[in-house]
């Protein structure tokens, strides 16, 4: 009897334990239920044979540079106003910020002293040519859109700009700070018109005492993005 109970107990124990994977394999139960190796069912598994292609950035025409020329009027403190002209190149880093480098030139006239005194000259004629370069940072503070009639819209930007550079005038290179504002009017997505106002500040002592001169410039320009 005991041995029969023992056999019965063992059978019950075996069946109840057949849920355990180890028992299944040990006693040959549940082979049909056991999950087959992954390779046999490719539909459920990501196929490792497919290489993941890293797609590079498409070959897109990047137009972050802007190059152009301008002409306008520049007033040199004490030396009158004259036509000025120059070249500029800008790089747009973000939709807001851009870096700009420009070079320009104008001519100084006679000071009041030189006019009233008759023949006396403070500086030579060649020293009256003013050339400058500057390296600036600009920020498009008021981007916008303007409308011409009913069917045409143009993008615009009002920007603030400031930077450092050097001015050659009256026989000396002068450390120059410039600041101003400008208006960019985009005729197309790649061509723009500019209206700029700048103040070029440098120290000058030609008229006796050293002072910081404010030299205002206003100019109109055309630029092309590339």
């Amino acid at each position, binding site marked *: 009897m005991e041995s029969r109970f023992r056999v019965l107990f063992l059978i019950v124990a075996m069946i109840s334990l057949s849920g355990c994977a180890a028992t299944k394999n040990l006693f040959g139960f549940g082979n049909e239920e056991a999950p087959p190796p992954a390779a046999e069912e490719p539909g459920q598994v990501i196929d490792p044979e497919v290489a993941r292609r890293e797609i590079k950035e498409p070959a897109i025409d990047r137009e972050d540079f802007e190059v152009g020329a301008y002409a306008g009027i520049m007033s040199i403190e004490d030396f009158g106003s004259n036509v000025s002209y120059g070249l500029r190149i800008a790089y*747009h880093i973000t939709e807001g910020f851009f870096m700009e480098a420009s070079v320009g030139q104008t001519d100084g006239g006679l000071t009041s002293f030189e006019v009233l005194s008759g023949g006396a000259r403070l500086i030579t004629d060649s020293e009256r040519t003013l050339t400058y370069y500057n390296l600036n940072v600009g920020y498009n503070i008021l*981007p916008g859109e303007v409308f011409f009639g009913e069917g045409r819209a143009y993008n615009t930007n009002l920007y603030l700009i400031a930077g450092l550079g*050097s001015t050659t005038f009256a*026989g000396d290179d002068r*450390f120059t700070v410039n600041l101003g504002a400008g208006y960019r009017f985009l005729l197309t997505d790649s061509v723009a018109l500019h209206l700029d106002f700048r103040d070029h500040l440098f120290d000058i002592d030609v008229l006796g005492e050293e002072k910081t001169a404010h030299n205002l410039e206003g100019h109109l320009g055309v630029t092309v993005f590339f």
Partner: protein
Amino acid sequence: MSEPSTTIIPSTLQQIKALVATCLCAVALQSFLPVPAQAEDELRSVVVADPYLEMRTGPGRGYPIFHVVDRGESVQIVMQRTNWYLVRSERGKEGWVERAQMEKTLQPDGQQVSFAAANIEDFTNARWETGVLAGDFGGANIVSLYGSYSLNPNVAVEFWGSQILGNFSNGWMASFNVVHEAFPEWRVSPFFTLGAGAIYTKPKSTIIEGDDRTDQIGHVGAGFRVYAARRFLLRAEYKSYVVFTSRDENEEVEEWKVGFAFFF
């Protein structure tokens, strides 16, 4: 054991030969046949995968959305400016789309497209960098422009051009540096620099009598590059110069500069 290897080698060689021949044929074919324009177009056109793609009238966050391209339609990429893409829809509408939205488009064959934005990893790994710094050079103002090329994330070579504008003299300086960054992956990355160049000095004739002169210079320095955002970084540095003059004593000049730069 050696026998199977002797049989394998010729077969491998043959495979390689076949592969090389195939490659050569492909190259020859490509050089004869005109590059299909379609491939070019495919690279520049993407399919909208998000519910919609918003087209704005200008390349900026504030410009109004005037047109929406639905999922499944394709758009042609005309050009890119900063983080904005000018795209043309199938219906011929042109508008500006933000990078974040372009990232959710797919290639015509369903592959993902990468519109990588500059991030701090590029700050560490970008090859080219250019910037503007200004500061004090032994009591004079200095304005500098530099260009840098990274040989690896730690070492870069730089070329500097500076104008010095002082009370007693003006001048120009050009120098060539090697820069070493010990921790290029840090947001604030310290560097050490060593370089040599030449300085041209022109004394102001109204104050000091003297001749224009050109001298050789050598310098050591240290500073920080600080990642600001996108392609921007700020840079501050100190350099100690030795000017090898033709006089009895060499001149020593200290320089402090700060400025900004961008990498690409």
